[in-house]
């Protein structure tokens, strides 16, 4: 006699469209998944909904005009984007940057890294189902944003850096406020662990999912935390120092598990390291000095091409500029870490449960503006 389960109940695979409007895709990103029950058989990311053609636009803009556009690529870490463009042009032209400007750049970039990781932390937990942390993260990020607002006059799209320096010097008292904030965050950060990291539900939820090996990571050109969670000790700030990062002492947090939990911890540890850098940078901040180097009125880099890469919060952010000696780039290409890191997603999602999907997608830390450029 056949058991009830062998009577051939027909099941079929279902194609589920996740996005482009979905709470946990962090923007207009779409994922077409084929599911069998709640198990994902295949996942196909579809993107381009936020494609604004920055690279095309940039070809018709002068280098200075591109800077506000870079703000909008990865809108959670505009400072880093500002920097990578300026750094590329400065490398191409062989410009030197005043010391004070370098300090300001490092300070704002590290603050932005913290702000970006805080947003990630909050939204990731929102994905996981905890609504509280989001607000706490935004409370602390708000302080950074206010500091940036005072410094650059904008809360999100800073347009702060210029080729050859930065636009504004720190206003009076700003450094002190920044120091205060750094001390505050240092004391607040353990609470993050109390609130979330220690929670058993949270731990069991993301331990051992979304796992991949170092070889996978390298093959898929992953960078940043996505690479470091597999045991590769690599941080461009440390290994190919740009700006004045070689003057500061900091560690590169590395994990070997390669799962979501390790990425979670790495990002929080990165905040700690950024705090370390900030402490040193703020202490050594030169009171005197200029913030803008001597640059030609019209930025006209020599004929040639340049590719620079820096460590953005999401990974390796690169800029390629092909110059024909004009004031506008011939070709402007951004190597966007979110875009590249996302490539491993279909592989990670294969065969996992639906409810792990958001945990895995969230742990990649994408910004759709950056994915789509």
């Amino acid at each position, binding site marked *: 006699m056949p058991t009830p389960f062998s009577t051939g109940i027909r099941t079929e695979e279902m194609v589920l469209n996740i996005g482009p409007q979905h709470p*946990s895709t962090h923007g207009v990103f779409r994922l077409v998944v084929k599911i069998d029950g709640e198990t994902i058989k295949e996942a196909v990311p579809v993107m381009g909904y936020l494609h604004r053609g920055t690279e095309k636009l940039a070809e018709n803009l002068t280098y200075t005009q591109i800077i506000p556009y870079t703000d909008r690529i990865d809108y959670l870490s505009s400072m880093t984007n500002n920097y990578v463009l300026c750094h590329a042009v400065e490398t191409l032209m062989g410009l030197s940057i005043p010391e004070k400007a370098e300090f300001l750049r490092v300070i704002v970039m590290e603050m932005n890294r913290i702000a970006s990781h805080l947003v990630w932390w909050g939204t990731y937990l929102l*994905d996981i*189902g*905890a609504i509280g942390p989001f607000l*706490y993260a935004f409370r602390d990020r708000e302080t950074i944003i206010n500091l940036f607002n005072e410094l650059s006059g904008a809360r999100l799209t800073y347009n702060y850096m210029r080729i050859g320096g930065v636009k504004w010097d720190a206003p009076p008292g700003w450094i002190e406020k920044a120091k205060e904030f750094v001390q505050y965050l240092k004391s607040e950060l353990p609470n993050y662990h109390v609130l979330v990291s220690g*929670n058993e*539900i949270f731990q069991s939820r993301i331990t051992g999912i979304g796992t991949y090996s170092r070889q996978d990571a390298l093959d898929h050109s992953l960078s940043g935390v996505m690479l470091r969670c597999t045991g590769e000790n690599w941080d461009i700030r440390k290994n190919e120092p740009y700006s004045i990062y070689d003057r500061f002492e900091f560690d590169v947090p590395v994990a070997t598990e390669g799962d979501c939990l390790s990425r979670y911890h790495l990002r929080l540890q990165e905040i700690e390291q950024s705090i370390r850098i900030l402490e040193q940078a703020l202490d050594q901040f030169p009171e005197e000095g200029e913030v803008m180097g001597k640059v030609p009125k019209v930025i006209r880099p020599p004929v040639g091409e340049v590719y620079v890469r820096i460590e953005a919060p999401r990974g390796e952010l690169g800029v390629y500029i092909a110059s024909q000696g004009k004031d506008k780039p011939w070709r402007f290409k951004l190597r966007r870490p979110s875009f590249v890191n996302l490539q491993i997603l279909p592989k990670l999602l294969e065969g996992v449960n*639906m409810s792990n999907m*958001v945990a895995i997608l969230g742990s990649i830390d994408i910004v759709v503006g950056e994915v789509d450029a």
Partner: protein
Amino acid sequence: MSSWLEQAPSLTNVLHYSLAAVALLLVVLGFVTYAIYFERKVIGWMQLRPGPNRVGPLGLLQTISDVTKLLLKEDTRPKHADKALFTLAPILAYSPAFAVLAVMPFTDTIQFADLGVGVLYYIALSSITVMGVITAGWASNNKYSLIGGMRSAAQMISYEVPLVMSVVGIILMTGSLNLKDIVYAQQDVWNIVPQFLGFIVFLIAAQAELNRSPFDLPEAESELVAGYHVEYSGFRFAMFMLAEYVYMFGMGTLIVVLFLGGWLPIHPSLDFIPPIIWFIIKFMFYVFLQFWLRATMPRFRADQLMGFAWKVLLPVALFNIMLTAFVITYQNGFM
């Protein structure tokens, strides 16, 4: 109140009874309105923001305006939805949640029906809610709601087992299924003390039964957008909301009755406080716990959720039954 039930049915009698039911409904609606308000307030405070504060003084009218909005909204139905079931589902979800309140003894006088099998009645009726949920999920003809409905069914059925099991200990101790008897049996010590294990299991299973954090998977907005009621709007959606909160009301009442001594004071010397106040205080504490958990907890994962029910809660509940049985037999001198 229950004496009415024994009278011969007359027009006045039926009218009275209906009026009482309407009164309870209003109380429940009032509770739901302000439970939602306080939920938003408490979570707001915990998240360092003031919560609703714009409609009415202190935002007290916020939920009322929300409900008004829901009622005035256009009643939409997806084109390919199953019309009959789509309409039926909210009712199916709501009515049992309200019906279970009939047996709830709020105090020794305020109770609608003093059933001998009160606990069974509650458990039996509350299981119907899952039908509403799964019907809604299926009838919407939406993949998200289908997944949400299936998850919900799996979850509610799974957790019902430990939920019932955890009550068995109390029934053994009391020797009755009548809720009033259970409360009276707690004169000396509340059941939470001897039945602590059962209380924990019940609390967790109740959380899952209610689809509330950290077990709010069926409506996990970050995965399933809104789960089984994703296609519902306007009044039908309000019904689901209502069902959820009324069910919470029912579960709160049950947990107070079963484990926290119902309307009994914490110590006989505090007798001067009216029983209904005692009841409300205990009840509030449970409701606050809901909000508190929601402000703190991340969500479980579907597979872990099921594993937790069958591999952890059920054995613990069974162990609790065995333990209680042994203790009782020992006390009665059979061993």
